[in-house]
């Protein structure tokens, strides 16, 4: 019988499956790559760390001691690592240091312990994303590049909002009663409202300048609205659990403001829906579409039903508020907001379709190959054909 230690050594042949090793390696590297950004550091700093890794400790201490203090000061002054993080603060999507900026934001959150402070921090970063969108809009670059950069910033904004919502949920679960917590959450609500307004304004400006903003801004706007309502939900929940940092009157006032804001949105959307419907009706008449097509297109005009439904939800919210059921009032506000957003997107889609259809119709009208020419029989030599409706076409 072979020696037991010899037998044990044979167990060294036990190995994992190669397919698992390879796929796991790929997954691991992609996970760690996603988490990190390259730090820009000076040659001095890199050399110091390399020496520290490779040299024995005693030798390192012997070399470092006489010039240690001076070296540290020099490294501090000339380390581009520090300058790198500072320089990245003004970077925009697509810039070289943008990833450094995002990483430094993550590090800041990592050092924060209190959940309500984290929520405020995420709102601060969300505001930075809105600043970036506004800055990109002012840049003298092609509309396509603008759209790409804005999409990146808007996606970042949506992420910050999601993180804020998650953090607010943690605050909600925490049973600590504190005026500071409630104040922090109130600030989150106010900031979310403000950012939502800025985002909407920016979107309209971009559309006016023919920059086709993608769905990313709509998604980001929706996320800010959800965050604002979530913040109020947290305060309502705290109040219901006996937190006296905010009074019932203050809460009722906050929720009333939300209802009024939603009502304003509904009015704006109603106008948009009417304009979209009018635009479509005009197009139908211009293009002399047949009755069947008219019927199919008419369904789009029914978008104006949705704002009515949204208005109904707000009426229900007011009823709940009057009866002191703040949680249900908030739910109705959320439902109303969803319907309003649906109507808004629908109206914008119709406007965009109208525009496209109008452009197509114009192209057809000016394309000579589509129009049958009528010959002028009196002309000699150079023949001139007159197109019945628009323009002339010379035929030699």
């Amino acid at each position: 019988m072979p020696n037991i230690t010899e037998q044990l050594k044979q167990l060294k042949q036990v190995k994992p499956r190669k397919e698992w090793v390879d796929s796991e390696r790929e997954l691991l590297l992609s996970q760690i790559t996603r988490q990190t950004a390259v730090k820009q550091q000076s040659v001095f700093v890199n050399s110091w760390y390399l020496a520290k890794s490779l040299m024995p400790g005693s030798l390192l201490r012997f070399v470092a001691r006489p010039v240690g203090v001076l070296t540290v000061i020099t490294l501090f002054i000339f380390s581009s690592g520090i300058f790198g993080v500072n320089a990245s603060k003004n970077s925009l999507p697509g810039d070289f240091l943008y990833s450094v900026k995002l990483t430094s934001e993550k590090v800041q959150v990592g050092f924060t312990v209190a959940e309500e402070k984290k929520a405020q921090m995420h709102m601060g970063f969300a505001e930075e994303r809105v600043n970036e969108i506004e800055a990109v809009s002012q840049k003298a670059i092609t509309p396509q590049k603008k759209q790409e950069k804005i999409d990146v910033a808007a996606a970042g904004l949506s992420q910050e909002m999601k993180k804020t919502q998650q953090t607010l949920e943690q605050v909600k679960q925490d049973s600590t009663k504190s005026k500071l917590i409630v104040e922090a959450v109130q600030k989150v609500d106010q900031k979310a409202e403000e950012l939502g307004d800025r985002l909407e304004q920016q979107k309209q400006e971009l559309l006016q300048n023919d920059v086709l903003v993608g769905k990313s801004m709509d998604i980001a706007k929706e996320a800010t609205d959800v965050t604002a309502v979530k913040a109020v939900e947290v305060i309502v929940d705290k109040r219901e659990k006996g937190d006296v940092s905010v009074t019932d009157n203050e809460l009722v006032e906050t929720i009333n403001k939300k209802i009024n804001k939603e009502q304003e949105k509904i009015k704006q959307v109603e106008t948009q829906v009417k304009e979209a419907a009018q635009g479509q009706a005009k197009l139908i008449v211009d293009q002399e579409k047949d009755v069947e097509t008219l019927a199919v297109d008419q369904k789009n005009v029914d978008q104006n039903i949705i704002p009515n439904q949204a208005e109904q939800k707000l009426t229900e919210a007011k009823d709940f508020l009057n009866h002191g059921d703040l949680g249900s009032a908030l739910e109705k506000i959320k439902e109303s907001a969803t319907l309003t957003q649906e109507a808004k997107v629908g109206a914008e889609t119709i406007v965009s379709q109208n525009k496209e259809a109008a452009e197509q119709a114009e192209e057809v009208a000016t394309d000579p190959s589509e129009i049958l020419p009528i010959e002028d029989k009196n002309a000699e030599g150079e023949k001139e054909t007159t197109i019945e409706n628009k323009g002339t076409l010379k035929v030699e």
Partner: protein
Amino acid sequence: MNKASLKEKYLIYKVRQNKDAESYGQLYDYYVDRIFRFILFKVSSVETAEDLTSEVFLKTWEYINTTDKKIGNLNALLYKVARNAVIDHYRKKRNDVIGTDEDFMHSIADHRINIEKDANLKIEIQSIEKHLGKLKDIYREVIILKYIEEFSVTEIAEVIDKSRGNVRVLLHRALQALKEIAGEE
């Protein structure tokens, strides 16, 4: 300092300074088999061993990039993290007993590489694994580290956080226990 350990130190430096994923990938290539094997002999299923091995490498990456301490011995660090991962796994399961002999042999047997060529060797390996499964966890651990992974007594002491003297005694007792189990069958 030998060439291999110098290369490892350079790779660790690149990981810490540049968060170089590819350098970490090279370290992964070097250690994955042995970490997997170490965990496999301590848990009852290959699937669990795979999951825990992934966890170990991710945790080690996070540790290397957050600690201020010098990484003097990555080998020991990885095994420590692996050891802790297994302990945490059993704490969650509330079960510090390895699976039955049948589970153990079945799960190991599925994942041999190139053993099928020699049926006798396969039988011998399954037999010694079965004996290993019957040992106390600490005995099994020192046996694995000493005779399979070929650690020195000093390295074993660092991994399991005991003195060298303690490790020598454990090794002696573990081997005796294994011989008794093997002798009984």
